[in-house]
């Protein structure tokens, strides 16, 4: 497949890896933000062939992992109502809420359906005028354009039985929150390529300057990840801290302007809670007042929900790059992808699930 296999060429990948070995002279901690990159790193064993001075820590860029428990519980409550068809990306169905997950709601008779796009959810709303159709709008900047479009389109068509339960989070505020934490270990970032596809990368310049960290935008293929690491290490070794775009075949500096315009029309910036991390100011989106009738949280007053995280789960510190999955006593024992205790074991983008799948159980 064009533009895919070339970026998986083992010979070139090895040359880039060799160059990383040549330029590395001292220990560095680098975080990849994006869960897709975490998956690629573990699947390809990139962390195991790097110079031992370089430690990769896995960031919070997995939407399934950081959606707060309260929102999952709200989704479960709404999905259980007899007049509701609840639609969601497949990953979210297995995320454990306080007492159950969306799959259990389905087995108890709830109409919970998996969709690949919010537009499919709109279609279900058109076809079921007597039902309330709710879409679980989670994710980072990459899913926001679609979720905004579905609301704008519903408004254009005058659909009144469609709404979204929104839990949208933004990457740059989380990067900043991690850097400003007293326990921070991150010295350089691999920025999430596809987030930049939407938003561009102007937001990263002030972060790189303020915290003196190099930020290198890269993709998901082994060569992209290695190339991103190489350029981060080069900057670290040289003492520079610039934003570098190493994914120029996909990312433009200004991002996708049309997507940004519609996101701005439908959503406004809000404080958001991140599962395992806590509240980060101005770190997400909520639906603007003018589209309030499409906001499932307002439409279904779900009231106060008291949540309980399983005590054993340390996914919060894993998402902050402070611990690795195999540091968790439950990893691979009580907690497996078949029976996940925490959200990082659910999605393939979650660090625990990636470690489990590629058998990093015994590596310490």
């Amino acid at each position, binding site marked *: *497949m064009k533009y895919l296999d070339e970026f998986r060429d083992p010979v070139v990948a090895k040359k880039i890896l060799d160059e990383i070995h*040549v330029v590395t002279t001292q220990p560095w901690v680098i975080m990849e933000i994006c*869960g897709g990159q975490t998956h690629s790193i573990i699947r390809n064993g990139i962390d195991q062939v790097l110079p031992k001075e370089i430690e990769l820590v896995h960031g919070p860029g997995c939407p399934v992992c950081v959606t707060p428990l309260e929102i999952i519980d709200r989704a479960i409550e709404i999905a259980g109502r007899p007049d509701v068809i609840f639609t969601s990306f497949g990953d979210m169905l297995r995320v454990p809420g306080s007492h159950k997950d969306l799959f259990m709601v389905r087995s108890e008779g709830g109409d919970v359906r998996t969709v690949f796009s919010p*537009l499919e959810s709109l279609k279900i709303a058109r076809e079921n005028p007597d039902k309330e159709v709710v879409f679980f709008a989670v994710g980072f900047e990459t899913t926001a354009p679609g979720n905004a479009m579905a609301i704008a389109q519903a408004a254009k068509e005058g659909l009144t039985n469609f709404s979204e339960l929104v839990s949208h989070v933004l990457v740059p505020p989380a990067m900043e929150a991690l850097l400003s934490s007293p326990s921070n270990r991150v010295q350089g970032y691999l920025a999430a390529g*596809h987030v930049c*596809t939407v938003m561009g990368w102007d937001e990263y310049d002030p972060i790189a300057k303020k915290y003196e960290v190099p930020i290198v935008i890269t993709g998901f293929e082994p060569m992209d990840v290695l190339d991103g690491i190489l350029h981060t290490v080069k900057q670290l070794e040289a003492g520079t801290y610039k934003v570098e775009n190493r994914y120029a*075949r996909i990312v433009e500096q200004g991002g996708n302007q049309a997507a940004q315009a519609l996101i701005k029309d439908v959503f406004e910036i809000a404080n958001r809670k991140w599962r395992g991390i806590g509240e980060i100011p101005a770190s997400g989106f909520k639906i603007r007042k003018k589209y309030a009738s499409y906001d499932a949280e307002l439409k279904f007053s779900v009231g106060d929900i008291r949540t309980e995280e399983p005590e054993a789960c340390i996914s919060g510190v894993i998402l902050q790059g402070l611990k690795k999955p195999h540091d968790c006593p439950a990893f691979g024992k009580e907690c497996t992808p078949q029976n996940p205790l925490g959200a990082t074991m659910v999605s393939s983008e979650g660090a625990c699930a990636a470690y489990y799948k590629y058998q990093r159980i015994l590596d310490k």
Partner: protein
Amino acid sequence: MCLAIPGKLLEVFEENGLKMGNIDFAGSVSKACLEYVPEIEIGQYTIVHAGFALSVLNEEEAKNSFDAWDDLIDRANAEGIEMDKLERPD
């Protein structure tokens, strides 16, 4: 929910007033909304997230990456660094 691989646009059509297309991802074809990439042409590659094409792959820049990597190999050879013989941690 994040599909990280580029797909090739096969055809364009309209659905409920939105510009849509069928896109081939390494052999499996799926539908995506093209409203955010109005400039895209059939045969071009695009990145799709949750049913929305977000960016058209820039073929020139893809080539630039390869050139830079070729350069890296040439430079290493010129400097006499025998990369293949470097120690690998086990």
